[in-house]
C-alpha cells in the first residue's frame, strides 16, 4: 500500500490504475513488451508441438436443452419442408444450370448446408438441438429455392413485398395471445426467454428497409437474402407459437408470472448494482492494477481483465437494451451478469491469495485447459439449480475446441505472451463455469421467492 502526501492511503491496485495509463499510453501501438524490445532480450517461447500435444483431448459436450417436450413430428415437419424446397430445384447446380460461378458457389454452399442440417436434425442429442437444426435446414433450403426462382424470374420484389404483411400478422397474433404463464417461475423464465427471442427475432427479420427491397430488383442473391429473412421470421413465429402452446398445454393452472418475473428481474439488477463496485469503470491499460499484489501479466490476470470488461459491457448493455418482449430474457441475462461478477471476484481472490495462474510451459497450459474442462463438466453435472444451469451453461463454455485449435496451429516456437493470451480463454471459461452453479442457485431462489 502506498501513501500520498496528504496521508490518504491507496492500495497498490489504485495506484497502478492511476499511473499505468499514462506510462503505458506512450508505448501503446509500438508493438511488443518493453522488456522484449530492449537489446539483447529475446522473448520467452514455448515449443509449438508441445503446446499442441498438451491441449489435445476430449472436449466436454454441453447440449442445448429446453424444458419443453418437443415432439419429433414437429421437428420432422421442418425437415420435410426443407427437403421439399430442395426438391423443387435442380440443386446441386452445375455450369449449365447456373453459369455464373459466384451465384453457383453460393447456392451450392446453401444446398450443402441444408443437407447437413437435415442430417444433424436426426442425430442431435436433444429435442431442442434437433429442432434448431431442422429450422436451419428449412431456411438454408429456402435460400436455394428463392434464388433459383429469382433466376427463373418466378420470384420478384413485388412477391416479397406482398409476403411480408401476412407474416407480420402472425407475429402480432402470437404476441397478442402470449404472456409469461407458468407454474414454476424458473422453468417459465427459461421457456419464455426462448419465445421472447423468437418474437424479437421475427420483428427484426421483417424490418427490411425499402431501399434493400429496391436494390434487390433483378438480383437473384439479394432477392434470396430478403426471402430468407422473411422465412426466418416465419420459422421464429412458428417455433415460438409451438413452444408456447406446448408449454402452456402441460400446465394444470396457467398463472401469469409477469409480476413475479418483474420482481425477480429488479431484485437481480439491484444485486448487480451492489456487486459491480469492484469493477473498473473503464478499460484498464494495465491488468495487474486489478489485483492488490505484485504479479506479472499472467494468463490469470488477463482473464481477470477480460471478465471485468465483459461484465462492464453486460451492465452497460442492460442500460441501453431495446426491443420487446424481454422480461424473461432480462432475468436470465441478469443471472449471467451476476455470474461474471462472481467469477471476477473469485479469480481476483485466487490471484491475491498467491496463485499467479501463470503459464511458463506446455504442461502449465495443459493444466489450465484441464481446469476448464473439469469446471464445465462439474457445472453440467451439478445437482442444484439444474434448470438455470442448463439454460446458461452453453453460453458460458466458450468453445474449448476453438481454443485448442489456436494451439494446434502454431509451428516452431510460440512467444510466451501469445501463449498466455490464448490460455487466458481457458481461465475465463473455468472461472465462469465454477461461478455458475452458485449464481444459478441464488437466481433460482430469487425467482421462487425463497431468497
Amino acid at each position, binding site marked *: 500500500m502506498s501513501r500520498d502526501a496528504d496521508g490518504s492511503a491507496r492500495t497498490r491496485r489504485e495506484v497502478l490504475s492511476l499511473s499505468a495509463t499514462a506510462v503505458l499510453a506512450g508505448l501503446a501501438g*509500438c508493438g511488443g513488451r518493453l522488456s522484449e524490445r530492449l537489446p539483447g532480450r529475446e522473448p520467452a517461447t514455448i515449443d509449438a508441438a508441445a503446446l499442441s500435444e498438451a491441449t489435445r483431448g476430449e472436449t466436454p459436450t454441453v447440449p442445448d436443452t429446453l424444458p419443453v417436450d418437443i415432439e419429433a413430428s414437429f421437428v420432422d415437419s421442418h425437415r420435410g419442408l426443407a427437403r421439399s424446397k430442395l426438391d423443387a430445384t435442380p440443386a446441386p447446380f452445375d455450369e449449365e444450370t447456373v*453459369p455464373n460461378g*459466384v451465384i453457383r458457389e453460393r447456392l451450392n454452399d446453401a444446398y450443402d448446408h441444408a443437407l447437413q442440417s437435415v442430417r444433424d436434425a436426426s442425430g442431435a442429442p436433444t429435442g431442442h438441438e434437433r429442432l434448431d437444426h431442422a429450422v436451419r435446414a428449412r431456411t438454408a433450403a429456402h435460400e436455394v429455392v428463392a434464388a433459383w426462382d429469382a433466376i427463373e424470374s418466378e420470384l420478384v420484389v413485388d412477391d416479397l413485398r406482398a409476403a411480408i404483411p401476412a407474416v407480420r400478422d402472425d407475429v402480432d397474433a402470437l404476441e397478442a395471445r402470449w404472456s409469461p404463464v407458468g407454474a414454476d417461475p424458473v422453468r417459465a423464465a427459461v421457456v419464455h426467454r426462448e419465445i421472447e427471442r423468437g418474437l424479437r427475432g421475427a420483428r427484426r427479420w421483417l424490418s427490411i428497409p425499402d431501399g434493400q427491397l*429496391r436494390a434487390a430488383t433483378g438480383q*437473384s442473391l439479394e432477392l434470396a437474402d430478403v426471402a430468407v429473412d422473411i422465412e426466418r421470421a416465419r420459422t421464429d413465429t412458428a417455433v415460438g407459437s409451438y413452444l408456447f402452446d406446448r408449454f402452456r398445454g402441460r400446465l394444470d393452472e396457467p398463472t401469469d408470472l409477469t409480476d413475479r418475473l418483474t420482481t425477480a428481474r429488479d431484485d437481480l439488477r439491484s444485486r448487480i448494482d451492489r456487486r459491480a463496485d469492484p469493477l473498473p469503470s473503464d478499460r484498464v491499460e494495465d491488468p495487474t492494477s486489478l489485483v492488490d499484489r505484485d504479479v506479472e501479466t499472467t494468463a490469470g490476470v488477463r482473464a481477470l481483465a477480460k471478465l471485468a470488461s465483459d461484465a462492464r459491457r453486460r451492465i452497460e448493455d442492460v442500460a441501453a437494451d431495446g426491443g420487446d418482449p424481454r422480461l424473461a430474457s432480462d432475468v436470465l441475462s441478469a443471472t449471467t451478469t451476476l455470474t461474471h461478477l462472481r467469477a471476477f471476484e473469485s479469480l481476483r481472490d485466487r490471484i491475491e491469495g498467491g496463485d499467479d495462474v501463470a503459464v511458463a510451459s506446455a504442461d502449465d497450459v495443459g493444466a489450465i485447459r484441464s481446469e476448464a474442462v473439469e469446471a464445465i463438466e462439474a457445472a453440467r453435472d451439478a445437482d442444484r439449480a439444474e434448470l438455470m444451469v442448463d439454460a446458461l451453461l452453453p453460453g458460458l463454455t466458450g468453445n474449448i475446441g476453438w481454443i485448442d485449435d489456436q494451439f494446434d496451429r502454431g509451428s516452431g516456437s510460440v512467444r510466451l505472451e501469445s501463449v498466455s493470451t490464448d490460455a487466458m480463454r481457458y481461465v475465463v471459461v473455468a472461472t465462469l463455469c465454477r461461478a455458475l452453479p452458485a449464481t444459478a442457485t441464488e437466481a433460482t431462489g430469487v425467482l421462487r421467492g425463497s431468497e
Partner: protein
Amino acid sequence: MPSSTPRPTRRRLIRSAAALVGAGAVAGCGGTAESSGTAVSSPEADPPDDAVTDPASVVLRAPLDEPVLQEAGDGSDSDSDGESDPRAGEWRHNLVADAETAASMSVVDVDGAAEARRFLEETDFDAETVYVERHAVGECYDQRLCWVRWTDQRIETSYARVLRPAEAACSADVRVGVTHLIRLSAALDPDQISRFSSSGGSRPCRTPPGSEDGKPGDGS
C-alpha cells in the same frame, strides 16, 4: 461544382497509376498516411454535392493482363504505367487531355471498342478531359460508376460492384480489368492533378435525394 482549368497546351498523358496509396507511410509509432488510393468504403452515403452522377462514359472489360488502351508508336498501354508495383495491377488511372493524344490511341478489340474510339473522337478537348480508370474486378461482377468529382488538383470516383446475371458464364476465381473512360466537363491540366482516389462497395449506387423516383442508380 467541378472546377475548370485552362486548356493544356501540350500533349499530355500522365501515367500516375502507382502514385498511390501511402500504405508504406504507416510504420512504427508515428507517420502519416497519404490519402490517395483505393478506399474500401462502400458508396452507401449520398454522393457529395459537387459530384457528377451521370457523366458520359464508356466501359471496357478485358483480361487483367491485357491493356485495352494503347498509345500508338511507343506500344505502352494507356491504362497503366507499366510499373512493377503490385498495387498497380489493382488500380490504374490516366488522363487524356488533348486531341492529339486521343487520336494516337488504339483500343484493343473487345466489346465496346468502337464506342470507346468514337467517345475519344467526339470529346471536345477545348472544354473536356477524358479520365481513364481501370480496376481489377471479379469476372462475375460488373463495376458501375456511381459518381465522379474533380478539382484542378484532384480526381475522385466511386463505384458499386454488382453481380452479373446468373446466365453470365464466369468463374468465381478469375478477375478481369474493367476500364472506365469518363468524360469530365473541364479541360484539366494533367500536370496539376496530383491526387487520385477511388472507393467501391457492394451496395448499389446512391443518387442525390430527389434526383429521381427512388430507384437505385447504376451510374453507368
